[in-house]
């Protein structure tokens, strides 16, 4: 039987506010346990939540960016359950009236196919603390630093049809929240987390299959693997006569498998009700308009502009604009060297390659956009060849200075004086009489040999175009 995969994602994006959603405590990552938890975060008797307005602005920003319906009134609700790292015994979240309503997002697959993914809603909520199970000798430690950290939970429609699509969608949301500067996107630190609702159904069937929710996925790579594992598990299960249970499953990256965490029967009845400590949030149209006016250029707009302005391919433009920092870097390189295509090749080629190899982000690049642009300028004005540029680039990467400094210091300036090049050619021809004879007998393949010898003799500095031209006429004799 042919199976179709159906996926919906729930993404928790930690909002990049300085303070928590309902208290004045700091949200910085990595502090000593319980040093960033005030009376409100501890859930002491008598304390009350006060909404951090910045979280509302950030949520609205996201809503505007995905063209979502933004109702004027949204309500915070209590989600009641007991857990040691949930200090109040309830999480303040949103249920019936989320701050961001229905919206959508375009995604482009590698093959250029584009698809619209529906976004059901996005709502504000507070994060819980952390339970620490090691080092406490049979007891658990509770760290409430994270308790009360603002989250925007972004819920997609079940519009995704493969693990690949899910990853492309998740990356697009990741890119968007970073463009909007509402989330730092750090998946290692848990600032951006994905849960996947996965089900399968026979191709052609209208009804959805029973879904399992896969949690604990902290990278895009694991997201793809976890979904693929889960899809196979479900298909195997059904094909061997079983049925998929509605449950929450935990992904184990070490074993690359999902394990049942709790079944529907074991699931909590969260007893949601409007939080009486918080008033409904009323968003005025003027507020939405102010947020809209303040919106940065978004990935799709930037991509279109790159294609238009720099004549880039859709693929190149897509890769460059996926990250706001990379796009800005590219634009700066381009502004310095004035050759969009050359800039693309270097940014996406040598630079990205080296960054990937060393596991660095563009923001951590040892080669600044100014320096890369400066080097490309020297290619454009023929001071160095593309080949020498690789050597120069490596030197810049290693902190040896700017392109000009390195070219001067290492004497890498291209030889463009015809007389000097002719001298080298004459010497090479004189040293290789056999090859010359063969060439003149019609073995024209040997042209490459001579070019190589000349370049070698010039230590790569001879202008390759001139070498070719002059060599051709000299070899003819």
């Amino acid at each position, binding site marked *: 039987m042919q199976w179709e995969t159906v996926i919906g994602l729930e993404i928790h994006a930690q909002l990049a506010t300085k303070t928590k959603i309902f208290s004045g405590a700091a949200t910085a990552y990595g502090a000593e346990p319980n040093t960033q938890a005030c009376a409100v975060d501890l859930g002491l*008797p008598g304390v*009350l939540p006060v909404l951090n307005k910045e979280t509302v602005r950030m949520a609205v920003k996201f809503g505007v960016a995905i063209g979502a319906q933004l109702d004027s009134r949204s309500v915070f609700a209590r989600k009641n359950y007991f857990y*040691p790292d949930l200090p109040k*015994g309830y999480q303040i979240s949103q249920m019936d009236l989320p701050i961001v309503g229905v919206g959508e997002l375009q995604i482009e697959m590698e093959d250029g196919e584009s698809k619209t993914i529906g976004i059901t809603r996005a709502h504000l909520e507070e994060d819980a603390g952390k339970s620490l199970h090691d080092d406490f000798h049979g007891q658990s430690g509770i760290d409430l630093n994270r308790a009360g950290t603002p989250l925007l939970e972004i819920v997609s429609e079940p519009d995704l049809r493969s693990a690949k699509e899910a990853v492309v969608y998740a990356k697009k949301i990741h890119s968007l929240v970073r463009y909007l500067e509402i989330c730092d996107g750090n998946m290692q630190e848990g600032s951006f987390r994905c849960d996947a609702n996965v089900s399968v159904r026979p191709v052609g069937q209208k009804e959805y299959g029973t879904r399992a929710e896969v949690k604990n996925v902290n990278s895009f790579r694991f997201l793809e693997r976890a979904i693929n594992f889960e899809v196979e598990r479900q298909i195997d299960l059904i094909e061997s006569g079983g049925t998929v249970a509605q449950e929450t499953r935990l992904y184990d990256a070490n074993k690359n498998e999902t394990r049942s965490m709790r079944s529907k029967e074991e699931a909590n009845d969260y007893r*949601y009700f409007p939080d009486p400590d*918080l008033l409904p949030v009323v968003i005025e149209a003027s507020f939405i308009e102010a947020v809209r006016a303040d919106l940065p250029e978004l990935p799709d707009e930037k991509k279109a502009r790159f294609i238009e302005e720099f004549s880039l391919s859709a693929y190149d433009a897509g890769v460059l604009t996926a990250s706001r920092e990379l796009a800005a870097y590219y634009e700066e390189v381009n502004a310095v060297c004035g050759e969009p295509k050359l800039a693309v090749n270097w940014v996406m080629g040598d630079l990205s390659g080296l960054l990937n190899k060393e596991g660095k982000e563009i923001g951590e690049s040892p080669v600044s956009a100014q320096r890369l642009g400066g080097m490309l300028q020297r290619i454009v004005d023929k001071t160095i060849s593309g080949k020498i540029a690789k050597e120069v680039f490596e030197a810049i990467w290693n902190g040896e200075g700017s392109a000009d400094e390195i070219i001067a210091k290492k004497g890498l300036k291209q030889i463009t004086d015809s007389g000097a090049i002719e001298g080298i050619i004459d010497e090479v021809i004189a040293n290789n009489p056999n090859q010359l004879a063969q060439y003149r007998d019609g073995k024209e393949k040997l042209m490459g040999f001579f070019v190589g010898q000349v370049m070698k003799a010039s230590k790569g500095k001879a202008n390759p175009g001139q070498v070719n031209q002059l060599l051709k006429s000299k070899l003819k004799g």
Partner: protein
Amino acid sequence: MHNKTIAELSAALASGEVSSVALTEHFLARIKRLDPELNSFVTVTAEQALADAAAADAARAEGSAGPLTGVPFAHKDIFCTEGVKTACGSKMLDNFIAPYDAAVVSKMKAAGMVMLGKTNMDEFAMGSSNETSFYGPVKNPWDKERVPGGSSGGSAAAVAARLAPMATGTDTGGSIRQPASLCGITGLKPTYGRVSRYGMIAFASSLDQAGPMARSAEDCALMLQLMAGFDERDSTSLENEVPDYSKGLNNSLEGLRIGLPKEYFGEGLDPEVAKVIETAIEEYKKMGATVKEISLPNTHLAVPAYYIVAPAECSSNLSRMDGVRFGHRCDDPKNLEDLYSRSRGEGFGEEVKRRILVGAYALSAGYYDAYYIKAQQIRHLISDDFKAAFTEVDLIMGPTTPSTAFNVGEKSKDPISMYLSDIYTISANLAGLPGLSLPAGFAQNMPVGLQVIGNYFDEARLLNVAHRFQQETTWHQQTPAGIE
């Protein structure tokens, strides 16, 4: 000295007739002598009180004292007081020393008032007789066989017994007005949002409101002046300007339109209580008020709606009492489930457990619409009843409670009859309106309270109306036997 009102004590302190230390010693001595029997205080902070009193006297000597500097009082044990046990009438918080001050507590401190201690109350403010307190029942100073009412029963008894000139209270379904009525004092529940709830341990967040309990309306005005006002730490506190509550106390009542809801005078009302209320109304007529019968047709729905909304909210509010970070923790928990169930099972009393269960049930999947949503709709109907009434009358009067104080143990086995003792007070909480109870006479030798319900933010008028009555009558000056 203990028979003086706050206004009088303020004058005596200002004139140097008495020092704050002497006054504080006097009240502490009374507490020591009379409270072992009454049980109105759960904590007496004698040492701190005397230090605060000395500081108040010093401030007065150097000319930096305010009108209330050095005046002793007591806090209901529901308000968090930094460094002082705040148990809220529960075993659950018997070991809880609050690390911060409630908004109301800060305001009293800033005014230089001297806290004598914390008063007894029903556990987590759930009760109408003070019998649900972990610290034992409070006795009514008028008859020690009877309850003082609740949940602010300790505050009411302490003020009635002249153990403190005033005490703070909180009112979720009548917890200021009902004990004020049963103990023969004046108590005011302000408009919801008038006084910050910050630091007040939540029972039912959408209904809870703090207010003053004192012997006269004039004193309540002075105290409300201090307690009221916007607080950015409480999102439900309101930004309306705080008027001068003492300014209009003597305003004429000529032409005042009083509404008497027929639903407050029907079946279940003790005839002797009804008679006291009717006499009080006659007094108002003499002062120039006009009286009109009105109807609040949804009154019969108030108690049922309240007993959905309040338990629903409390079931969630009390979830933080889980034995993990503070409060009672059971010995040697076997696992997490055991930690929760035994800590909570041991820490909470019967009435609290009953309400948590009712509330959790009302909020659970499949019942939410039938109970919680319906109760919220009833709240709207009740608010609309009042809204309609206030187009015809300026304020509403009736009995605060259907009977005078009942005997200890009389209703504690029958929750429904206990709940019905708040039948006249609950509506004001559901609608968020201000309500006041003032002594209006006696029935069966026990005090009877007259309830006055006003429109939103009309506390000044309630205080004016109560004050004028207290100028014409002496019911509020009556003293229980044996405590002179």
